[in-house]
């Protein structure tokens, strides 16, 4: 038996996948989920081999949900119309189904996945997708992180600074710190450059949080934030910050 989970916020959209799947008796739907939160939980419990995933969903979208998974299953995306997503799919997804899709098209996606399953590790496909730099517009406004079993959504305007930490990035808000498995260059590229500046190899700072800049040594400076944090500025970082501040 191949365990499958359906994640879509429209019940009718899930029901058509369930209906089409009846023609493939080796598949069994272990759970249907209304949103990404339910999805993360269900995937943790059932460890399905394959999920059918919508992109536009409440609170966190399909891509963000995948980011929260340590061992993401193979994914077939189902979506209505999404120019951003399609770019990502074409490069990396197992397959994607544009709603409304036919039984034939659905069957082809299943066959494609079955043949990939025999040849390669499907996980590699999905993780490649996650690291794609093709972002959804709403993802520029928030970062989704997992804290134990809780999922937290950090609005970008709450972030004060980011610090590199091995394979992770520490995201600091006023009161808290979150760890996210990403690269500094990912955030440097995806955050608004007018609001967030890479001031150092290991630091990205929110411009609005800076209260003071002091010289430290020759060529280096120190930025003081409203929260009291002190961020070192490299020579090029200081120059970048000055140009953003219009100095």
């Amino acid at each position, binding site marked *: 038996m191949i365990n499958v989970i359906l994640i879509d916020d429209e019940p009718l*959209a899930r029901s058509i996948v369930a209906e089409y799947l009846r023609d493939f008796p080796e598949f069994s739907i272990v759970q249907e989920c209304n949103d990404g939160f339910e999805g993360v939980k269900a995937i943790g419990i059932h460890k399905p081999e394959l999920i059918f995933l919508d992109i536009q969903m*409440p609170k966190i979208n399909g891509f963000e949900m995948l980011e929260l998974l340590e061992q993401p299953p193979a994914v077939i995306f189902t979506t209505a119309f999404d120019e951003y997503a399609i770019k990502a799919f074409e490069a990396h997804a197992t397959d994607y189904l544009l709603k409304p899709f036919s039984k034939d098209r659905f069957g082809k996606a299943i066959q494609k996945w079955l043949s990939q399953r025999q040849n390669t590790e499907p996980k590699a496909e999905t993780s490649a997708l996650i690291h794609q730099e093709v972002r959804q517009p709403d993802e520029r406004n928030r970062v989704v992180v997992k804290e134990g079993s809780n999922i937290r959504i950090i609005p970008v305007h709450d972030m004060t600074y980011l610090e590199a930490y091995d394979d992770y990035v520490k995201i600091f808000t006023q009161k808290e710190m979150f760890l996210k498995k990403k690269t500094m260059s990912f955030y440097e590229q995806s955050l608004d450059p007018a609001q967030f500046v890479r001031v150092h190899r290991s630091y990205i700072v929110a411009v609005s949080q800076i209260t003071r800049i002091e010289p430290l040594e020759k060529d280096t400076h120190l930025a003081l934030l409203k929260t009291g944090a002190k961020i070192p500025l490299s020579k090029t970082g200081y120059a970048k910050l000055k140009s953003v501040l219009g100095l």
Partner: protein
Amino acid sequence: MQTNLTTSRVILATFGWCSMLVLFETYALMSTFSFDLTVALADSVNFNLLVFTAGYVMFNTLKFYQPAPKNGFYLLVWSVALASLCAVLHRYAMAHYFFQDNVAYQEYLVGSHVIRGLFAWLFIALIGMQTWIWFYIQDQRASEKREQETLKFSREAELASLRQQLQPHFLFNSLNSISALAGSRPEEARKMIQQLSDFLRGTIKKDDQQLVSLEEELKHLQLYLDIEKVRFGHRLKTEIISNENTATMVLPALLLQPVVENAIKFGLYDTIGEITIRIQARSTDRNLIIVVENPFDPETSHPRQGTGFGLNSVQRRLSLLYARQDLLTTQAVGTLFRTEIKIPQPA
């Protein structure tokens, strides 16, 4: 057609002006030089006819060739040439064909040669200048009209494309729901096809400039809401509050659908669980006020970021139609996001 009419009017005016000059000159010659009426009249008619002809030539020249101001020199040369021609022809005609015996007149003819030329030039230059200005204004008007037409076209195109962009996501998801219903509940699928068709027909049939009654707009909106409820029935509740006063008030066709679409999207994707979209209409002395409310999560959303495409297009449309920027306002009250639209009513 209109140009011809105006051209003939200009010729008529010039002719009238020349006739007046004939009268003045006849009187002047009779009173100053004591010529008799025949001589004075013949002289002034002949000269003014020549000048009139030269003026007409000037007018026609400018009709087909309008020099830029820096090439005004050509016009000067041309007008001097025409004036000289007038003076010479007049003197030749009067000296050789008329009143050869009238010594006083012949003397006068030779003596007035230069002043005549100058006078003719003044007249021709005046006509030239007037014509130039007249064509300049006409050109200006034509290009203004073209500009307005272009602007109108681009507005219409923009409105059409704005409308276009609102549809695909909704359309494909609705079709997907129909596809799902077709297997298990064909009667409901058929009903939804009917609703979707009515909705699309309403969208296509209306033009952007058209004003419709709130009652009609709400009827169209209800079709949209019914379709959305098939998709999100488990989460979506709607409330429409309007009264008899507002039912007959007018607003631009299809204005509310994108606002409500935005509210639904914002409400559904920013929260989890059941949501209520509230649409209220009321009237103030000169305006129809429509308020659309949806819940949102202030913890994770910046309302300003949440306005999205839907409201920008509505804002743009209102400012194109009413030339005002203040008709759409948004406000976050606790966990509710309010969009308020003010529609000025025709007097």
